[in-house]
Structure formats: C-alpha cells, structure tokens
C-alpha cells in the first residue's frame, strides 16, 4: 500500500518527462521461438536512481529464465497460465508471471540492461505486438511503463508505453 502511495506521488510529480522509454533491444521475434529479452533502462525516475525493475510476463510467454545481476536481488512470481502450452512435447500449465530485480541502485546518469530468456508459444498471433508491462521503481517514486495502445491507437501518443515486441510468423 505504501508503495502505491509513493508511486501515486510519482505520477503527480513525474511523468511527461520521459526522454526515452524503457524498450527491448530486439523488437521483433518469431512465434514458437526462444527469445532473449534485453530490457534497456535509459534513466531513472526524474533524476532518481532506479532501485527495482519489475516485468510482467504476458500470457503465451513460457519457460521464462531471468539472468541474475550482481548487486540486485532476483525474484520471480509464479502462477497458473490461462491455458496449457506444449513445450518439447510436454504440457505446461504454470510458470513465471513476473520477474523482479530489486535492491540495486542504478544512478540516473547510467544505463543498464536487464535480461531474461523466454519461449514464445507457437499459437501467439503473428503480426501483432506483445507487450510486457514494466514498473521501474526508484527511491520513493516509480515510472510505470504499462500503457498498451487500444486498437487503432498510435503507440507514440502514449506517455508511458509498455515495451513490446512485434510477433512474426514462424520460419
């Protein structure tokens, strides 16, 4: 709850000053393939050092394995998928739903990358964009990269868009 209050403060003071968004290095991936996600964090929240990065894993992204980062505590939250997926001939019904790197300190003037590897389910819709909402926490404030454009809405019009990858058909 405290965090919500703090991040409420962040929304008041903060947003609108995003010079650069949180994005993925590779912005295109084929469905049914393994994807190495490199999340680029270009700045802190309003000049404050980043202390945590939390990524929500969307439905259809399975077998998630985050890369540990020295100086940061790595945690995952697991849960049930909405449906069952086939992975190497086996049915998978649950797995990682959220990845948290926390306890670190990334000053505003430095750049950092947060990495995880995942499998994109074969039945994800090719041609669409898959969004990974990210909450970037700093000391007492937060930036929420969680906006997903409505159908027909221009992504550029969003203040804090969630990073996404364009899904392409399987090769």
């Amino acid at each position, binding site marked *: 709850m405290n965090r919500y209050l703090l991040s*409420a403060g962040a929304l008041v003071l903060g947003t609108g000053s995003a010079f650069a968004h949180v994005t993925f290095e590779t912005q295109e991936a084929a469905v049914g393939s393994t994807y190495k996600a490199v999340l680029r964090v270009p700045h802190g929240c309003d000049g404050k050092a980043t202390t945590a990065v939390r990524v*929500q894993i969307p439905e259809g992204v399975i077998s998630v394995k985050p890369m540990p980062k020295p100086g940061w505590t790595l945690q995952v939250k697991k849960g049930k998928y909405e449906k069952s997926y086939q992975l190497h001939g086996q049915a998978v019904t649950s797995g990682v739903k959220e990845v948290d790197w926390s306890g670190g300190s990334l000053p505003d003037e430095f750049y950092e990358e947060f990495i995880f590897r995942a499998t994109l389910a074969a039945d994800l819709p090719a041609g669409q964009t898959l969004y990974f909402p990210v*909450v970037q926490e700093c000391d007492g404030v937060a930036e929420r990269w969680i906006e997903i454009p409505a159908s027909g809405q221009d992504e550029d019009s969003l203040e804090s868009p969630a990073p996404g990858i364009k899904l392409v058909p399987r090769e």
Partner: protein
Amino acid sequence: MSAASLQRAVCTACKGASRLAAGLLAAIMLLAAIAAPNQAFAHAALVTADPADGAVLGQSPAHFSLTFSEPASPLVLTLVRPDGTAVPLTSFRLNGQTVEIDNSQMLGSGTHVLSWRVISADGHPVGGSVLFSIGAPSAAPAVSEAVDLDLRSAIWVAKVFLYAGLFLGVGGAFAIAWLAQGGRTGRRFVIAAILCGLAAAPLSLGLQGLDALGAPLTRLAQPGVWQAGLATSFGWTALIAVVALGLGLLSLVGPRGGAKLFALAGLTGVGAALAASGHASAAEPQWLTRPMVFLHGAGIAFWAGALAPLGLAIRRKPAEAAAFLRRFSHTILPVVAVLAATGIVLAIIQVQAPAALLGTAYGRLLLVKLALLFFLFTLAATNRWKLTRPAEAGETEVQRRLVRSIGIEMLIVLAIFGVAAGWRFTPPPRALAIAAAQPASIHIHTPKAMADLSITPGHVGPVAASMIIMTGDFGPLDASQVTLVLSKPDSGIEPIKRAAIKPGDGTWRVDDLVIPVPGRWTVRLDILVSDFEIVKIEAPIDIRP
C-alpha cells in the same frame, strides 16, 4: 433634518401629490423594464443532459434524459429538427430529479435542439435547450427564446391588481370591521378593491399558465393553459386569494354579527395566499420562510388596508374617526415591527451577500422598495407622532394635512406593490447562488471502466472534483491510483494533472484544483487497476464562466 423642515418637505410633496404619483409610477415602470432579465434564469438548474449539450452522436438516440438540481416537472418538451420543424415530446417519466424522455422517431443527421421548459417548487417556470448532433454538426435550427413582453406586462398588471385586492380590499375590510367598529366610511372603496382582486386572481392564474407553457396571450382561452396554471404552486395562491377576497367581501356585505370573524379569516387568508408560492416562500429553511411570508403579508394588509378607510373617515366624519384613528395608531407600532422584522429576515435569506443588492435585478428592486419604504416610514412617523394627537383633538387644519399625507402614503404603497410584483421576473440572489454552485457532471462509460465525475462548483475558479469509479458493467473497481487530467487544447494551457485521494467513502477526490478558463475541457481519468494495468478514460466537460 429638523421636524419643521420635514413638515415643509411633506407639504411641498402634498402640493405636488399628483405629479409625484405620476413620477413614481413612471419610475416603477422604467425600473421594471430595466430589471426584467432577458432570459429565464434557472431556479431548478439543469445539471446533466443526455445527450450532453454539444454532443455528436453516431446514431439516433432512443431516449433523452434531463437531470435538474431539484425535482422539476416538465411543461413543454420539444425536439427541433435540423430543418427547423418542431416535434413535441409527450412520452416522459419523472424519476427523482431526472426527466426521462422517450424518442420514438429516427433522427436524421444534423444538429437537433432539445428544448425544455419545466416548473420547480417556487412555481416559476424555467426553460432552456440542449443542442446535439447526429453524425456531424450542422447549422443549429433557430429556436425562439424571446421574452414575451405583452405577457410579462399582463402578468405584472394582474399581480398589482391582485395585491390591491388582497391588501387594500381584504385589509380594508379588516380595518372597517375591527378598527372602525361600526363606521362604514370607505366601504365602497374597499369593495371596489376586492372586486379588482377577484377579477385579477383568476386572470393571474391563466397568465401563469401561459407563462408556464411559453404560450402567447392569444391562447389564454384554451383550457390546457388554465390547467397548467393551476398545476403550479401559484394555483394555491390564486385559490386561497379568491377565498380570502370572498371572506373580505362577506364581512362587508354579510350579516353584521359575523363581520369581525370573516374579516379576520380574510386577513389570515391574505398571509396564506402569499405564503403558498413565490421566491420567498420557496426559499429554505421552509419552517422559517413560509411563516415569515405569512406574517409579512398579513401585516401589509393590516397597515395598507387601514389607510383608505381611515383617510376617508377623517375627511368625511372627523368626529367618528377619532376612535378609529386612536385604535389604528395604538396597534400599528407592533405591526410595523413585525413587518420590518419579517422583511429583514426574508431579505437576508434571499439576497445573502450585500454585493447582490447592486449586482442583481432582484437586489436593485429591493433597493427601490427600501427607498420607497423610507419615504413611507417618514410620512407614517410624522403622522403618528406629530399629527395624530392634534387630529384626535379635532384640529381641522391638522386633520386635512393628515388626510393628504395618508393619500400620499396610499400612492407609495401602490408603488411598493408595483415593485414587489416586479420580483415575479427576477430570481433572487439565493437562487442564482444555488444555480452557480451546481456542479458540472459527466458520466464516462467505456467497456473497461466507467466513472461519474462532478466538478463543484461547475464554473471557473477554485473547484473540487469527486469521482466514483466502476467497472464497465457497473461492478466495483478497487483502483490503486486515480489521476485526473484536465486539458483544453484550444486554450494553450498545459494539461492540469492531479493525483486523486481516497477519502474512504468509496469516492476519489481532487481538492485545491483551479480551473482558469471557461468552456469545453477534456477530462481524463488514469485509473491504475492493478500494478501493471492502467485504464485511461476521457470525455468532454463544460465549465461555466
């Protein structure tokens, strides 16, 4: 001003009494013309309309709804199509403060006008219109909201005659029965005043019906007009007034034994008739205002009613009049005290802020009335403390002056009636303040979330916003954050962004908000549904100047 110079002033006035009267009447007419506002101000203010004013709809709506600041019943609802043809809307329901209207016809594209006229608790009709467009806006059809000056004049004249009937007629009957005690001088004058009132009361009802329906004078003969008039709270005033006038007449021409009783009942009726409708009676708190109006009305009848019989009695039968004069001068002081006290209380309730005395038509009429009252009180005080005793003693020169002075008092009283009748067209500052304080409200409905948002007061300046957030299907939505964003792209003002707080009553609030300019703003709510999910909904909202 010394007593001597006061007397000189009074006597100068005596000589020019007829000129003074003509001047006063002209001044009243002029003031009434200046004070009459050009449009009906809201007593029951329109709070929300669906479709909203200025809305552009994709398709023809199946129904309309109008929500007011207090319960109001529709008198006339009309839909004006883009080609200017008007269609009456007759199928509607009252749901609390909301009027729900069915629309059975398919509306073509273009701008339509939903014109409404409703009546609220004070018995005064108000009207307005809502413009909306199907497809895309077109040139708005012309809707006449012009003031019917003929009707207004007729209402004003009828009202003055009704006042004359109630105050001079019924009040006069009371004076003859209780103060003259056997003297019958002035009886003819009083009967004439009562007959005036008896003609004016039903006529006022028909005129009220015309005003209620926004119909011209030529439709006065139609029964629907009279029904509409009767259905307003003024219907009660007219009915009670007729009974009071009848009782007054009965006390004069009926059996002598019942004269006092009939006259007293008539005087009570005068107070009741005035308390039944009008601005002052409709004001809150009702337990205070209605008795105050009652006492004020009865007090006026007592005082004004006694003037004509008294003056005539002194002129014609000075010997008999002495007892009349004595009784009147003994009772008038407490009556005037009650009049002044009730008048002051009602004025404070209605005007609220001293600035409204000059700033509103209602306040200006009150100032005119106060000026006339000052005149009246000066004359009355002179009569009471300088002239009454020698007149009672039989000094004929003083008696003549007293009669002239009473004559001028009568003229001033008539002028005051004229001013008071002008209030019929001016909403009191109290009602204006209520209308100004009304919030601007909108309902935003999207599949993901919806919100009821009110900005209070709905005009520029410091405001507070209150929001109720729900899911798209009216379920509870326990948001973790709500941010209000107000923008006005055409004004060059950067979006105003404020985090809302949760006071704990299920709403979200933003206090300390200042809206700098009036007009159409875009309001957006950023609702953080969960840690990773945000819903943004937006809609236009109209902020009054």
